[in-house]
């Protein structure tokens, strides 16, 4: 039943050896990166956040086949929930293990709010409505500083608390057994744990009754309905789940950055996450992770290669790496849809679905 290609899991000892190797690599990674520069650990943390977001969006777009272009709004809701409840802005300093579930719940409610009226719409309408919803949330974040200052407007919220467990703070440096772990390194391990949990949840979801219902709806909604699936509820569930993953990621983002503003939750970010899902392979968990990791590191690699290359060639930076990154994103979307619509690492069903058909769609 699995959507993921699992043939490589056939030989047991090889699998365990591989898993052990990867686990070891993931454990050592931040210290290796820290020798190059703590900045790279931060980049890795952001990459993991993007993996989390992509996995959340993958539930909506990949599993259930509902194109959501306002996904970043849920990330924003989670981030603002954390920022408002753990910063001097309102003088509240709740612990993170209370706020994260609140943020997830809040994002979930927003997901249902968005989903309930729109889910009966056809796919492309849904895309536009979700896009509009994302914009509305951003406009509200930008303007809810009047007449009562809730979001502090475009200035954003600063001095957000880091994660704390008793006296253990994730922000400070700490020396343990002769190893010094900086704040980002500690967050890295936290993110890794969250990531592993989310991946396991995703894999379990995919093969569950709900997961199969999502895929069925994606493939053919009428047939799915005929099979006794309550399509509305199941689609709502996809929206709600995707949204709550976004909310959790948002909360962690706020804690790591210590500062958030509406600027971080713009349409481009939604599109970036969508690009990650599309590039990796909609519907395939490991494909999505691959896509997210690739696209998160591309801008950093560009920053370190494009600028020096341009300065040596032309004596100055002609094209901003940021622009090149966006052009690459756009190009990736266009080329992937044209030549490899199922993604770099496609799921089996999805590949079949994207094979060209005869006749016209959707009449």
């Amino acid at each position, binding site marked *: 039943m699995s959507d993921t290609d699992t043939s490589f899991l056939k030989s047991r000892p090889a699998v365990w050896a591989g898993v052990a190797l990867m686990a070891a690599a993931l454990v050592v990674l931040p210290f290796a990166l820290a020798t190059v520069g703590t900045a790279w650990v931060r980049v890795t943390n952001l990459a993991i956040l993007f993996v989390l977001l992509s996995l959340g969006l993958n539930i909506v777009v990949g599993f259930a086949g509902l194109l959501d272009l306002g996904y970043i709004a849920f990330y924003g809701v989670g981030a603002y929930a954390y920022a408002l409840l753990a910063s001097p802005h309102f003088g509240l300093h709740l612990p993170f293990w209370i706020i994260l579930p609140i943020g997830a719940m809040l994002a979930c409610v927003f997901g249902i709010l968005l989903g309930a009226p729109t889910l009966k719409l056809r796919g492309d309408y849904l895309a536009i409505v979700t896009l509009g919803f994302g914009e509305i949330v951003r406009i509200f974040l930008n303007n809810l500083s009047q007449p009562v200052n809730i979001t502090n407007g475009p200035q954003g919220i600063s001095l957000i608390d880091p994660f704390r467990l008793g006296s253990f703070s994730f922000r400070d440096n700490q020396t343990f057994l002769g190893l010094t772990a900086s704040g980002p390194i500690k967050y890295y391990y936290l993110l890794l744990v969250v990531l592993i949990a989310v991946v396991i949840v995703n894999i379990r979801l995919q093969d569950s009754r709900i997961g199969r219902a999502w895929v069925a709806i994606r493939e053919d909604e009428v047939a799915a309905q005929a099979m006794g699936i309550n399509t509305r509820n199941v689609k709502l569930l996809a929206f709600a789940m995707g949204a709550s993953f976004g909310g959790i990621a948002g909360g962690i983002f706020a804690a790591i950055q210590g500062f958030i503003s509406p600027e971080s939750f713009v349409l481009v970010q939604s599109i970036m996450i969508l690009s990650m899902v599309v590039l990796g392979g909609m519907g395939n968990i490991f494909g999505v992770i691959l896509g997210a990791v690739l696209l998160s590191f591309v801008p950093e690699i560009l920053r370190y290669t494009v600028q020096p290359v341009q300065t040596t060639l032309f004596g100055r930076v002609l094209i901003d790496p940021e622009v090149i990154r966006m052009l690459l*994103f756009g190009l990736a*979307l266009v080329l992937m849809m044209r030549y490899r619509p199922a993604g770099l690492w496609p799921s089996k069903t999805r590949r079949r679905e994207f094979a060209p058909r005869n006749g016209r769609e959707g009449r």
Partner: protein
Amino acid sequence: MDIFLQQIINGLTLGSVYAIVALGYTMVYGIVQLINFAHGEVVMVGAMVALWVITALAGSGTTLPPLVIVLIGTLCAIPACMAVGYAMERIAYRPLRNAPRLAPLITAIGISIILQHLAMLIWSRNPLAFPQIISNPVFHLGGATISGVQIAIISLSLLMMAALTLLVYRTKLGVAMRATSENPEIAGLMGIDVNRVISITFVIGAALAAVAGVMVGTYYGIAHYTMGALLGMKAFSAAVLGGIGNLAGAMLGGMLLGVVEALGTGYIGNLTDLCHVSWISSDLAERCAVDGHVILFGSNYQDVFAFVVLILVLVFRPSGLLGERVSDRA
């Protein structure tokens, strides 16, 4: 009353632009059932090219009258946008015509990003001032004012809508377009070159978008590489409001959305002024006594109206005001 009339005039001006852009969405949708997400970017390209040409001409010290310069700018923008529209269809959408709906939509987003950032590379990342070379006389109309540019925008769009209606309902090409929209296979059997008709539809839409771009540019006096995205979304909302795939619907929807937005922006501050209900708390009454107004939602929520209209229409009447097509799922 004066404010009301003024907002209606402003709304109709903006609405004409929305209508022209919405026509591009609706024509393409009517023929290939595709939301050309990148259509807003074509408007931006039109504004940018026109701005480029007008600035160059105005700065070259020519003796041409200003109106002619703007006209030349528009005439340069139109073929540029037509080329963009054609290339878009040819490169991005045609190969995906038989793919699932999700595919061309994602491609469209990609095209939109590419066009935006290319425009940013060519023109700048900062907003550019549209040269204000034509004199803009202001006329008084029963307590409100209407400017020459506003009159020009409204009448020019009405003219273009009339021309487009004639084209679609009175020419051979129009028959071919309507036939293709009914059923492309049968249209092909009847000797219609379906690919050509689809290309032409994109190109006509792009030409309209170019004119819309010049209109927005001269109206607001500014052009920016991101101006197309929001405008495009609003125009799409207008097309949905009128009933997507329906020409008259797009025109009506555009005008209506413009008026709704203008009236909403004009009145929302007053309507949501909490001082009307200052009796609910003494704190509020105090603030009202000091500031005069405690406005819950001000005119900075202008951009929300289009989306709210869009969502309401899709929920309560997905086929739009004039649309006959029932919204089915892909």
